[in-house]
């Protein structure tokens, strides 16, 4: 397969499948099951196609004759695309039980999911500001609607409107920033802007600096960093559990793809200006997130708040990126994977045991689960350990890379601070484990059924453990080293 084919096939397949489902949904042959499996199949195939492009280092301007250098296809993009396609696949696979027990997952919901993934794919290939904006909005719009999918729920509708309103507000900063940049560099193409920045002095770059900061604000909004992420609790709570998992685990990956592409190379000269902003953002994000997480009663809200803390860790690594520490950037990729597999698993367990009901799951609802469903409880424990960064889970390795890269970049104090918030996070994560194992059980054993959801929860838990201890000692499965190698490849391909 040529690289052009891979680059076009993935978004093409997603759009075609979305259009097909849109039409098929109206025919009498449509059932929810068929729609579900078509979507799942599309994700598998497109993941396999895109994964075939990550093993080697490559970078190409995608069909400049047609796209006029708007899109670039490289290992970096391919890695990110594979990551969130995998994430989408896991989310959907685990959500099977939830989707079947609710009635608001119509065929449009699958279409929207595919379209949002399409937007993310284009976003991670975008080499131009307008293309990036449009694809980001395609993805965001689809997610807005997915949040408000359950029209009978007031909370969901409220979340939808809040998210839409604030999202549009944030998007306006992006547009303003893009305008600033265009005003000075006379182009929206990232390569040309980079060339302009390199060939002029600081006096003719002021607007670019200001404009880039505005774009960064949109990015920080999307990853729910304090103070731009105040929406996160309301929206995550209002959205149904699979969608929350999708937003927390998958959407972030695509946003970071663009952020890294934009800031890692072309704007690296401005590092001195941005780093303090990002680090400041990371600090308030970590503190704010853990403060919020610590007082929650609902497990879902706790996970939502704690996802803010994880954004904080990612921001630390983001600030640590510089020309000579490609370690920080690959740490981000690794951490994104580590976080999405753990978070999707954790949300997945919640959606699995909620059986589609809209009732909030409090800590007390988990009491004694270890007795009635030991495997599910053990998986949830593994996810909690990983999120808390406990050794021998993938979450530990992820945090290890992030803090190491921060120390390498000279941010030792912030790494220590991150470690302290990780320490605090043990409180709210281990509370879950405590309720699972050490509280008396008030309810009876429930048969949840849905082997596919169950299997993928267990598979995620296994992946979390494998990523934490995996070596090639016993089996020839790729472990930490392989993942790390992939991440490094991806980052190096950016510079090609």
């Amino acid at each position, binding site marked *: 397969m040529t690289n052009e084919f891979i680059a076009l096939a993935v978004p093409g397949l997603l759009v075609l499948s979305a259009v097909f489902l849109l039409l098929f949904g109206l025919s009498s042959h449509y059932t929810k099951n068929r729609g579900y499996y078509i979507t799942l199949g599309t994700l598998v195939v497109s993941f396999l196609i895109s994964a075939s492009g990550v093993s080697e280092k490559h970078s190409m301007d995608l069909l400049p004759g047609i796209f006029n250098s708007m899109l670039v296809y490289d290992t970096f993009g391919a890695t990110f695309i594979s990551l969130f396609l995998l994430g989408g696949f896991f989310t959907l696979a685990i959500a099977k039980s939830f989707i079947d027990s609710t009635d608001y997952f119509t065929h449009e919901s699958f279409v929207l999911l595919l379209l949002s993934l399409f937007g993310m794919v284009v976003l991670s290939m975008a080499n131009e500001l307008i293309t990036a904006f449009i694809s980001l909005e395609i993805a965001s719009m689809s997610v807005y609607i997915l949040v408000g999918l359950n029209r009978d729920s007031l909370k969901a509708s409220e979340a939808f409107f809040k998210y839409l309103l604030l999202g549009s507000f944030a998007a306006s900063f992006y547009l303003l920033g893009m305008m600033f940049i265009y005003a000075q560099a006379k182009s929206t193409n990232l390569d040309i802007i980079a060339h302009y920045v390199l060939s002029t002095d600081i006096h003719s770059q002021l607007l670019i600096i200001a404009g880039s*900061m505005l774009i960064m604000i949109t990015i920080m909004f999307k990853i729910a960093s304090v*103070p*731009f992420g*105040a929406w996160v609790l309301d929206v995550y709570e209002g959205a149904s559990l699979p969608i929350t998992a999708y937003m927390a685990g998958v959407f972030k990956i695509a946003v970071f793809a663009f952020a890294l592409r934009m800031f890692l190379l072309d704007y690296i000269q401005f590092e001195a*200006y941005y780093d*303090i902003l990002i680090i400041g953002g990371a600090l308030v994000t970590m503190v704010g997130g853990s403060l*919020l997480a610590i*007082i929650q009663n609902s497990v879902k809200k706790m996970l939502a708040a704690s996802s803010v803390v994880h954004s904080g860790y990612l921001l630390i690594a983001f600030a640590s990126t510089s020309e000579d520490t490609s370690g920080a950037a690959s740490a981000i990729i690794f951490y994104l994977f580590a976080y999405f597999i753990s978070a999707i698993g954790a949300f997945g367990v919640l959606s699995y045991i909620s059986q589609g009901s809209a009732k909030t799951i409090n800590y007390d609802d988990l009491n004694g689960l270890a007795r009635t469903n030991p495997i599910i409880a053990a998986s949830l424990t593994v996810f909690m350990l990983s999120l808390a960064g406990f050794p021998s889970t993938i979450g530990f390795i992820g945090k290890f890379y992030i803090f190491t890269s921060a120390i390498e970049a000279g941010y030792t104090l912030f790494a220590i601070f991150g470690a302290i918030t990780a320490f605090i996070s043990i409180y709210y994560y281990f509370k879950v484990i405590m309720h699972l194992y050490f509280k008396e059980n008030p309810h009876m054993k429930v048969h949840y059924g849905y082997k596919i959801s169950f299997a993928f929860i267990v598979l995620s838990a296994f992946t979390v453990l494998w990523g934490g201890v995996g070596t090639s000692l016993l089996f020839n499965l790729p472990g930490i080293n392989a993942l790390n190698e992939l991440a490094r490849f991806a980052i190096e391909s950016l510079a090609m």
Partner: protein
Amino acid sequence: MSDSTLLSTLLLSPLISAALIFFINMLFLNPRQSLFTFLALTGSGVSAVLALIVSYQSYFHAQVFTSHLFTWLSIGEFTIELALKADALGSFMLLFVAPVSFLIHLYASGYMDKDKSYGRFFTYFNLFIFFMFLLVLADNPIIMFIGWEGVGLVSYALIGFYFEDIQNTYAGNKAFIVNRVGDFGFLSALMLLFIEAGSAGFSFDSIFLSLAQIDPSMLSLIAFLLFVGAMGKSAQIPLFVWLPDAMAGPTPVSALIHAATMVTAGVYMVARFAPLYTMTPDISLFIAYVGAFSALFAAIVATRQYDIKKILAYSTMSQLGFMFMALGVGAYSTALFHMFTHAFFKGLLFMAAGYIIVAFHHKQDIRELQGIRKSLPLLFVMMFTASLSISAIPPLSAFFSKDAIMGALYASGHVELFLMALVASLLTAYYMFRMVFVLFYSQKTQSTKKSSKSMLYPMVVLTVLSVFAGLLNLPELFGGNLNISNWLNLLDKELLLPHAKELLLISVNTLLILGVILYTYKRYAYTQAIHKESQENLVAKKFYVDEIYTLLITQPLHYLSIFFEQKISHGIIDRLINLSALYYARAGILFSYLENGNVRFYALYMLIGVVSGFVYLYWALRGVL
């Protein structure tokens, strides 16, 4: 079968059978006992046969078996291999460890008959031989340490085997904790060795090659710390207190672990590090003195014990003391040879004790077991033989091994060591025959009908071995040529006596021992002397060692930990944490006021963020503007 497969099979077969027994025991409610017996005996039997092959090849063809299982750790240039090596020393250890283990397995299948934890027992038992082989066959100290810890762990589990009685668990704890002190020494020594000599690989051979570059005082420290490990494992002063208590375990455990194999690991380790100890004569002498005091101390205490197993436990400690004396003066192969014969006669003695215990309703006090000769005639013969052997009566096996030790001590010129050994050796005859005469020579008679063939056969084999095993290392004096010493080829010091002097020494020694036995006969056979012994004097109270340890070590530690728990942990740390947690929770509640659900506020926060970002940018760029 290739050499390396053979060695791996030898190591792994008990592990596999242990795993099988474990799973069968876990998964099935009422598994058949015969299945467990079959698995356990196959596991240990296969390795016993293979061990005989290995030592045969090693002895006659000087073949060195090696096997590389996998690379355990690989950090840059440095690797730790899970590699096995059966050189002469290793093969020699296999020669008695594996067959004795098999025999004791056979014995245990009778002893543990119809026990409700039959499966659990043999899981541990097979696991024990696996770790013992790992310890003996390891090609580097790290793997040796794994085996070392493994046997300690299994020993702990087996001492507390009948955990329904809390006292047994305490005994297990005591053994484990005291051994941790020794392990601390061993581990520290390994770390120092690693720092000093680890750069060129960490197998035994490469360590010994780079010993010469290490500073002598550091070398002494390493040698000392290694010996601290040996003290713990081999129950020498001051770390011996666990061994008498370890008799709480089932008797086959005492026979296998606390007499024949595990407790000799310390002796083996010192012999393995012989190149190190030949370079540190001071530490070697220290070892000899520790051994001498242990031998003497244990022998004295054994003279006032009444529990049949405790007498044997102190006797084990005393014999180990003899071995360390020999190691200390540089007679490595002599020490190992005594370990070899000791495994047979001490294993036999313990098995006999276990047989008596089973036959007489778990009575262990020799005062209650008087007069059992009529009902157990064969047992009497075997126990009498073993006692003659341990007392070093010619031509039984321990005569050759112990006499070689006495000769080496005398030749080394340390007369005080020689005299201490002599006294200990005479006391050995005294406490052994005190036990024999009380048990078997009495007006009273007790009868029993219980007997078990599978318990008896291994004892017969061991009786034969404890009579004849000594011939393997016949000294020149008796027309032999020290086969085993030549085979082992360790860095023995030349400690030769003129033949006339040696003969004199042996004769005097033997006469003295015979005299002691005669005296013991007068005193204990057909008398009530055993009932008249004082329970209150220093010896009967074991020199108050346990009490002194409690007073000096356990109590202060106890008070210290209470202090730390109540004052430091609860009083300061917990309060600080609770305080900070309280404020954190309050801050969280305050912060949640910001999350008030109003979109206009959220947008305001965003604006605040944007504005502060620009203020910062303006400040950062002020020089340019």
